[in-house]
């Protein structure tokens, strides 16, 4: 009867999670804080083209740290990883399918587009009152 667990792809013992000690957690925490600082710093530069991409890359890195170490996915081989990766894959599918539509649709089929970029070029800094449109004539 000892082989009853044989079919289970992964027979973890609870203590099976490696104890990499609390030290690793602190390291991850410091890395997360550092990355937050980084994204805060780059975010304020408002890099025109790849600002969003950069912010998302940093966010993904942070998320990966949380998932792999705080949530122990690093040690949990097998099905939990598959589950998580599948989930992310399906999120991306949903994103691509929908964005694929909006980005390739006929101009006339999109809602009224906003004013040209020039009009909004003088973006205020955080917390400032906007430079235009605040007072109606």
């Amino acid at each position, binding site marked *: 009867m000892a082989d009853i667990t044989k079919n289970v792809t992964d027979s973890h013992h609870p203590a099976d999670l490696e104890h990499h000690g609390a030290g690793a957690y602190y390291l991850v925490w410091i890395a997360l804080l550092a990355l937050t600082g980084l994204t805060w710093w780059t975010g304020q530069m408002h890099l025109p083209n790849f600002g969003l991409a950069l912010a998302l890359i940093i966010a993904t890195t942070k998320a990966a740290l949380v998932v792999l170490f705080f949530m122990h996915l690093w040690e949990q081989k097998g099905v939990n990883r598959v589950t998580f990766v599948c989930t992310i894959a399906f999120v991306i599918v949903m994103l691509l399918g929908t964005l694929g539509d909006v980005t390739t649709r*006929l*101009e*006339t*089929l*999109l*809602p*009224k*587009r906003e004013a040209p970029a020039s009009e909004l070029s003088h973006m205020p800094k955080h917390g400032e009152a906007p430079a235009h449109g605040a*007072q*109606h*004539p």
Partner: protein
Amino acid sequence: MKVDAMQSLLFLPEQASTFAERVDNLHYLVIISTMIVSFLVGTTALVFFILYRRRKPHAYTPTIEPDLKAEMLFVGIPTVFFLAFFAIGFRDFVWVRTPPANAMDVYVMGKQWMWKFAYPEGPNGVNTLHIPAHRPIRLLITSRDVIHSFYVPEFRVKQDAVPGRYAEIWFEATKPGTYQVLCAEYCGLDHSMMRADVVVHEPAEFDEWLANAQRSERHEQQDSEPIAAATQQFPGNLRLQGERIAARAGCFKCHSTDGSPHIGPTFLDMYLRKEKLADGRTVIADESYITESMMDPHLKVVAGFQPVMPSFLGQLDAPETAAIVEYIKSLSTNRVVNEGSKGPVYELRNR
């Protein structure tokens, strides 16, 4: 002849556009190959069923697993067929979505529960669309409230009318006659009665009709008295004037006409609305209040809005003010507003 037989066998309506022929040809191809394949599958099943019927209760049977060849066949055959259907179908779809450069434009607006048609140079019409045969027609379809769908079975053409934007589809009618427009997207209580007619004319006949219609529309607009016109299909010059003056004076920068809140109260249903003022009083937005607000806007500010409106005293004369009031009065959700379809409010793709 063969095609006619298929057509009546499948209860298909008349083919009255060039697109209809394309759709039907693919339809026949799909139907015929389906029939052949399902006949084969059915016959195979029947033969197996007879050959291998149960002869003794607890018979044992060999385990049979497919070899690679069978697997490839099972995957390959449907893939090839389905992709072929898709390739043809998508080619035709792209075709019907790409209007030729010389297409004639018609604006179509769906509204609970009627269709409005307008030509760039006029005229406007409700529930009857006149088009010439043998000339590509591009429909620019929009909706005023919910999603509708413009559908003419004989043309095999269908396109959803999405509020706030223009969808386009084109077709070329081949047979003069009258065809029914149906709304195919559920749009509420009278969805099934939202019908219109397409009248397909011979090209020469159509040109004549168009010239006539444009002339009579101009005539109507110039000569009719405002009050008399209000009872007609297009309610009055005063109202139209009002709209134009309001646009010129910049009212729409702050006042929406569709009920959405903006910097100022919406014009929609404003007339005779009970407004709560910032100082706690209430007021009925009748003619005098609206006029007064244009002249001295800060006197009675509606609660929830900032006193930011400029005074138009001296900028609008009395008839202009009256026209705007008349225009606001016409913006009521409770009455059907008959107006022609507006042209595209967004810049159209270069064709």
